[in-house]
């Protein structure tokens, strides 16, 4: 149990997918202008990542490893994740329209998200078992959400500040992301 908690903390803070591993930077900059959007995106990522992490772990363990086809991992995962997102979108639209209304527009964006793909590949590389893969996927997603929401908060404040013209918008966003990333380095060595 302690192992799992440690794993979760390390995934959320120390190896934060956005600020320590630098994956999924496009939604990080693209959807962080408004808090509302950022929260929607974070929820969608949590939702998709947990499902994707679990499904890809199953595909890898029971199909690819059995026939020694690990070299097909990337292409197989892309196929699986893409179909999964489409499936989830359809499912939500029909069954939970309220949730679809909240997440709907973000789901297609995640289809080709490197953070999702990255987490699935990390799960396999670290040779996690099923429970560990589940916890790690959730924790990485939570870390993604944490960083995104923090960043959105900062960017909303930046809007009120006087930013020199050449540094406005994305430019100041990247600088802020860098500083935020440095802050997260403080967690290194915690576990």
């Amino acid at each position, binding site marked *: 149990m302690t192992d799992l908690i440690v794993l979760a903390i390390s995934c959320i803070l120390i190896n934060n997918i956005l600020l320590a591993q630098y994956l999924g930077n496009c939604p990080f900059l693209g959807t962080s202008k408004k808090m509302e959007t950022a929260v929607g995106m974070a929820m969608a990522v949590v939702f998709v990542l947990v499902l994707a992490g679990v499904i890809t772990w199953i595909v890898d363990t029971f199909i*690819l490893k059995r026939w020694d086809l690990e070299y097909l991992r990337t292409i197989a995962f892309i196929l699986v994740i893409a179909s999964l997102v489409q499936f989830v979108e359809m499912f939500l639209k029909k069954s939970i329209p309220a949730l679809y209304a909240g997440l709907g527009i973000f789901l297609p964006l995640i289809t080709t998200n490197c953070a999702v793909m990255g987490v699935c590949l990390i799960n396999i590389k670290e040779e996690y078992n099923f429970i560990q893969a589940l916890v790690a996927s959730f924790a990485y997603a939570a870390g993604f959400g944490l960083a995104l929401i923090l960043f959105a908060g900062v960017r909303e404040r930046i809007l009120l500040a*006087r930013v020199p013209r050449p540094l406005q918008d994305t430019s100041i966003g990247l600088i802020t992301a860098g500083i935020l990333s440095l802050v997260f380095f403080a967690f290194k060595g915690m576990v």
Partner: protein
Amino acid sequence: MLEATLVMLAIGGVCGLVLSIASKIFYVYEDPRIAEVEGFLAGANCGGCGYAGCSAAAAAVVAGKAPPSICMVAGLESAIKVAEIMGLDPGSAEPMKSVNECLGGVRADDKYFYNGAPACAALAALWGGRRVCTIGCLGLGDCIRACRFDAIEMGPEGYPVVDEARCVGCGVCEKVCPKNIITVRTMSQRLLHFNEEDDALAPCRQTCPAEIDIPKYIGQIREGDYEGAVHTIRERNPLLLTCGRVCPHPCEDYCRRGIVDEPVSINQLKRFVADYEMNSGKRLPIPCAPETDKKVAVVGGGPAGLSCAYFLRRLGHRVTIFDAMPELGGIARYGIPEYRLPARVLDWEIQGILDLGIEARCNNKLGRDFTIASLRREGFDAIFLGIGAWSDYRLRVEGEDLDGCWQGIKFLSKVAAGEKVKVGPRAAVIGGGNSAIDCVRTLVRLGVREVYLVYRRTRKEMPANEVEIEAAEHEGIKFIFLAAPVRVIGDENGRVTHLEYQKMELGEPDASGRRRPVPIEGSETLLEVETVITAIGQRPDVSFVEKDPDLAKLKVTRWNTIDNDPETLQTSIAYIFTAGDAATGASLVVDAIGGGRRAARSIHQYLNGEPVKGSPKSLRKRHIPESLFDDVPGVVRSKRTPMPELPVEQRLDSMVEVDLVISEKDALYESGRCLSCCRLCYNRETEQQENQGAGQDGSSEDAGRELEEATA
């Protein structure tokens, strides 16, 4: 290798199968129009419209949350196509443009010292902003930062200025503005807006019955942009040549400069730009919204009808004007004499309105040549009644039907139509209004040497415009005040020889606040005249209502006017609207023009199937109390430009126009006298120089301080 291919095929197959089954199971009906609409959007997923991608925007359009013109990349053509799919009035598919109504900026005083975040949103949270004006621009430029097209920049006076060429109408600025001072509207929406309690309105603009943006067009004249000024006036008043000549300019009574100095000569400036356009030899183009398939019949081609037709046409509807007289213009042509409003000027103005694509059928009288039912059969969706007030009140004295007796409007319209009118060498006109003055001044021009104006009160109580009374005095009219006609005396041939009147004295004030004339017993006097004209007021001729069984439900007031809702001008029959003298009784041309536009708004709502209603905040010529001052500090007294007039000797015996247009130099001088007022702000003159310097220093200091704050 074979294994790998098979496994990938299998995975792919399973995925495909699951998805195809899922799409059956989880099928949700989606409006097919969403896909159609999306086809006409740019597909750039730019997010400029404020929705996350084109499909989200398309869904919003279909859900009615966004207008068809939402896509700023695809432009007007796509908007029209989208409106078609949605079955919407393409009128709403016009391009949107951002407008900043506030000219205030740093002109208003501050309530408190503000040293916080340099953002309007933050400032608005503190007592609605630091300026004393509750509605005005905060001047910290949230809209400028929000605009993705660099279309707004901070003007030198500290308020944002919109570059119309760059503005795509995305509406972001409107969303971020915490004071609703920057608005994004289509032309139609602007045409349909009426003064509201929380608009940025100068006192003159609140008073004008047509609600013209007076400070804006005077500002444009000052900058030499005469065409812009014409456009500004035309957004509210299509008859600027007419109004520039005959309007009694109630706006000038509320001119803020007038409180401490002579008011700005607003109407002469209007006439100056109107004449400028006419004399320039070309007509400025007037934009109209895309065509709709709705047809409106405008009955009566006077000021109200022309105004209503003009605005409906600009909103894209198909309009036909019906008029009983041989030519359009109504009372402006047949009631206002040639020397005040030459027919050639009126012709030019009316032609410009008809050129928008309005059909006119003259010599067509309601109740004689057509009925409301026949109009409905012809396919008119709504009907506007602007039939005016053409029925003269009668004196009800003995002998008023003798040969030589006339009624005001009948007399004036006969003269205006160019018919020969037989008048004697001496004439008396009874009445004290503008029509009476028009009659006496016309008589003088017809060669009558002795013209009397008989009025039962005194000069002070005369309802006619002061300038008109003065002009009549210059032209040698003899005024007989405090005299009430008792009877008209004729000879054995039934021709008028005398007018007998009784002298009056003023008693207690009556309901209208004027002192009631009381007859003096035994004071009957005879006045030798061969012509007597009664011009004591007019009322609408509503005889067609009784003749037409379809109109049984049309309510008529006890003053013979057609009853309507004062805000929407809709009558008791939903598809009939009315304005002008027919609804108000004899009144000003400019009142009729404002009424015509108000009716056009209601008709537009009615045609689009929307509820016909105005705004609960509608001002309707009421004034905003905080905008009316007792004292106006900071005004340097300056002379008002006098009205250039034809000398009296040239006026008599001819119908040549009396009032002349001011020169360009005078127009520039007069426009410079305007204080550019808004609700509270105005340009102070005495301290202008020092203030400008200090203001600029102050603002740069402010900016420095704010920057420090922000970076600290």
